[in-house]
Structure formats: structure tokens, C-alpha cells
């Protein structure tokens, strides 16, 4: 397998080069879905670097911007139904909490990894998580939370999804997730690391 220049340009955060390569490949007749594959590979690499502490938020946000610009070029060229996803993930920041910068990063990484992400935004009530999981038949509901005071509603959100009978797994994330919080919450998975979301999704969707 040869080097994937486009993936490397993304990981190198080289905005100009990424857009030029996307154009070049389109001109050369590559399928948009293939190009998206390269972008995703680059994105995954960026996620890894962030997890290892080699990349920072500023770089992640820049990477997200490059992705967005590339997708703006590619998306209109995708034929109806051509876009393939590995599955649908529902995500939101739990009721009572409005911190969303961390959640947005998780969304970006999940999208980058090829999932269709339904982002409910912030201050999301338990019923909303359940309703959306039902509509989308998503097997994975992810919740973000930064405030220790949102722990109570987080627990309610987890319980609502678990008791809905939909069978969806629940992943909770945020800087305050530890063993104590996990035990309290009743969630299936938990992590304080954004890139764990893609690993856990791979497990959940692999099994599904």
C-alpha cells in the first residue's frame, strides 16, 4: 500500500495542500467516497496524536475546519444514497450542562471515522435521547458532561435509555469520568478521552 498523500496532508494540518489534493483527485476521476476515506484516515491519525498528547485543541479545531471545507466541496458531488456510514451515533451534552467544546471534538472524530452522528446539542433531556435513539435505531448513545452538578441528570439520561428497551449502549464522557462516576451512572462505557469514542463505537458496531 502506497502513501496516502491526502491523509498525510490532513494530519500535517496543511490546509492549502488538502484542498488542492481534493480538487486534483476529483479531476483525476476519484470517487468522492474514496476521497472521504483518505480524509478520515488523516483524521484518525490526528485523533491518535491528540490522545498521545502530541496534538492540542488548537490543532484539533484547525483539523475540524479543514475537514469541513473539504466536505463542503465533496458533499454536493455525492450521489443520492452514495454516502456510506458505519452506523449512527446519537450524542449530546446532558441536561443542566452547556459545555460543548469537548463534545464537538468527539463528534468530529466520530464523523471522521465514518459514522453518521446525530448531534442533539447541549442541555439535552432524557426523553430527547430516548426519542432520537428510537427514531434513528442507533445502537450507541453518547453523552458528554463537565459539571459535577450535572451528574444527577446524567444518571437519569442513562437510565432513560437503558429502560427504554431499545437496547442501545450508553457511553458517557467528560473530564470528570472516573470509576466512582461510572459506578454511579450505570453507563456501559465511559471515558475522559475523546478518541476512545471511536474505539468504543468500533466495538459496538462491530458486534451489532
Amino acid at each position: 500500500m502506497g502513501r496516502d498523500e491526502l491523509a498525510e496532508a490532513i494530519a500535517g494540518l496543511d490546509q492549502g495542500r488538502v484542498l488542492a489534493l481534493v480538487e486534483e483527485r476529483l479531476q483525476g476521476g476519484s470517487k468522492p467516497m474514496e476521497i472521504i476515506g483518505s480524509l478520515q484516515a488523516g483524521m484518525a491519525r490526528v485523533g491518535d496524536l491528540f490522545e498521545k498528547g502530541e496534538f492540542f485543541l488548537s490543532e484539533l479545531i484547525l483539523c475540524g475546519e479543514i475537514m469541513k471545507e473539504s466536505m463542503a466541496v465533496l458533499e454536493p458531488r455525492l450521489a443520492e444514497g452514495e454516502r456510506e456510514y458505519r452506523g449512527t451515533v446519537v450524542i449530546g451534552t446532558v441536561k443542566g450542562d452547556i459545555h460543548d467544546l469537548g463534545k464537538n471534538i468527539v463528534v468530529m472524530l466520530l464523523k471522521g471515522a465514518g459514522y453518521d452522528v446525530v448531534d442533539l446539542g447541549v442541555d439535552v433531556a432524557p426523553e430527547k435521547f430516548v426519542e432520537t435513539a428510537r427514531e434513528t435505531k442507533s445502537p450507541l448513545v453518547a453523552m458528554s458532561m463537565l459539571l459535577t452538578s450535572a451528574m444527577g441528570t446524567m444518571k437519569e439520561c442513562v437510565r432513560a435509555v437503558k429502560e427504554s428497551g431499545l437496547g442501545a449502549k450508553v457511553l458517557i464522557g467528560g473530564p470528570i469520568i472516573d470509576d466512582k462516576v461510572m459506578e454511579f451512572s450505570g453507563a456501559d462505557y465511559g471515558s475522559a478521552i475523546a478518541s476512545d469514542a471511536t474505539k468504543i463505537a468500533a466495538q459496538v458496531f462491530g458486534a451489532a
Partner: protein
Amino acid sequence: MADMEKLAEERKKRYLAAMNLEKPDRVPIRLNFSGEFITKVSGYSFQETYYDWEKNVDATRKMLDRLDLEMVVGAANLWWATLHDAVGAKYLRFAGRDLDEETMFQYVEEPYMLPEDYDDFIANPTEWIATTYLPRIHTDLAEPGSYRASAALIKGAFGLAQQFAAGGEATASYLRDYGVIPSIVGISKAPFDTLADTLRGLSGIMLDLYQRPEKVKEALEVLVPHNIFYGMATAQGDTDFPLFMPLHRGAYPFMKMEQWEQFYWPTLKQVIEGLWSYGKRTMFYAENIWTPYLEKIAELPEKSIIFHVDQTDMDKAFEVLGGRFCLSGNVPNSLLAFGTAEEVKDYVKRLLDKYARDGGFILDAGAVILDDAKEENIRALIEAGIEYGVY
């Protein structure tokens, strides 16, 4: 109420000694409560204290009736909802209005300052705030010169003046009636946070670092004298008590080291040194993790800050900054919410044994204390501080 004054004097002496790296009679206890915690303890609803400033002032008194505190920040909530209604603030949502009655306020973060605003901002930020920013963030001001806008300006200014006056009177009354001293007097920010928090938003500022770094630097430079001035003005000249500086976007892992050294640190350092040149000390409220930056922070003039530890590695902070600055922190908020009183006491004991021995230490939680903290755990924290904190 001479005893209360005497009590306040003692507490002040203790607090000042710790900040000056001395050993007071015991470790001072400073707890940074949110308005929501105070409201919960007071028995009022969130809506009541957000909307009714008298209840907001009274909530702190009700807390002081229940908890044996030596200092407070002031009235429960920082913000009066009605003032925000008067101007039509887009970016805040309040309990009882667009949120349930018992829900914490919400801030809607957007890039309220646009990339094309940099030049005007740099040329005259005060004028830019008046002519561009306020009409953009306050719906009642959307048409400058209109009747609605004129009314909103008058009401906004009058409301803030009322709030300032009532706030000052509240702090004085807590001292008079309970002997509690203010834990902070005056507030300011790191220039980078001023630009990132309410103006460009996180995504905006982060992209600016790549797309218009020179503009960012110019804007930060312009902010330095304003942030020093704002700190001294809100402190109304006080130099005994520390100035509150909540540090938001300089934590790890927001920026890589080069960026932090270029964009975050130089102007923050100038602000702290500027304040210190007036004799005003800064409470360096380092939210989350600051471990990689400790060596840089050590460059600040001795005693010019209190370094507050949240998730920063306490051992490292003690090693690098101890003996140079007073340290404060770091009882975990999750422990205050989920732990038992025993666990809290154990934690405090270990904390003080390890880091407070030589003085220069203030006991506090790691982060702002929200309404999830159990009152019994706060009691345990205070008791342990009094028991194990004696020198």
C-alpha cells in the same frame, strides 16, 4: 458589634499571612461557592436569587447562618437576570424564564466578535464595544437611537449601578454581622481569555491563531492596559485582598507550548505584573490542568499571585512554586459531591500534612463549588481544616 470586627481582623490577618508565605495561627479556609450552591443552602429557588437581588444578598446570609465560614465572595449570584432582560442579552438563559426554575443559568457561546472586527477593536476597543458589540449581543439595542435602544441603555446602566451599590453594601454587611471577610476584591482576566470567552469563542480564537496571528497579538497587546485598569477599578483601589482571575483557555491541552508562550503567557504576565506594581495580588485561579506551565509561572514576582490548584499536579506545583507563591486548593469537587464526610476529612488531613506544613497555604476545593456538593461534606472540610490546619 465590636466582636465581629475583631473576628474579621483575625481572619484577615490569617489570610494575609498565608498569602505572604508566613505561618498564621492556622490554615485559612476559602471556599469558592457558586451562586447555585449558596441558593440551594439558603432554601430559595434558583429563579428567586437570579431575579430578586435582595434575595440574592439574603441567600449568602442564610448560608452564613448555617455554615461557619471565614470568608465569602459576596452575594450569591454574580449576575442579576433582570439586568439582562432589560438589555435583551442573547447569550444568557435563566431559570424560570427559558429554563426550568431549578436549572443553572446557561451561556450560549458564539463568535460575537467577527474576524473583520479586529481592526476596529484594535483602534479603539471601548468605542467598538459601544457601537458594534452591544447592539449585536443585546436585542433591545439592535437599532441604535431607537426608543427601545435608548430605554435599554438607560435601564442597563442604572441597573448595573444599583447592583454595584448593593453588592458593596452586602459585603460590608456580611463583615459587620458575621465577621466574614471578602475572599476576593476586584476581577480581571488574561487578555487571551477576554478575547476568547465573550468575543471570538473557542473555535474562533483557535482558528485565528493560524489564520490571523498578527491581529490576535495586536488585540492582546491592546487589552493589557485595559485589563490592568479594569482589575484596579473593580477593586476600587483595594490592595489587601486578592483580585480574582479565573483562567479559562490557557489550561492544558488548549494550546501547544509554542502557542501558549506566544499568545497566552506574555500578556497575562504583563497584566499580573501591572497589578502587582500597584500592590495588587492576583488569585491565579488555574482551572483544570496547568502542570506543563509551572516553570513559566515561576517567573512572576515573588508573592504576586496565589497559585490555585484544581487538576494541576499538586506535587509538582509544590515543588516548583512552593515557597515562592502561596498555594491553594484542591479538594476534588467529585469528592464533595459523592464522597462521605470521612473521606473528605481524610483528604484534607493528607493535603495539609503534605503541603501546608511551612505555611503559605489556603484550603479550598479544586473548582467552583456547585450545588451538587453535600452540605455535610462542606462541614467536614471546614472541621478538618480547623482541626488539622493549626500550626
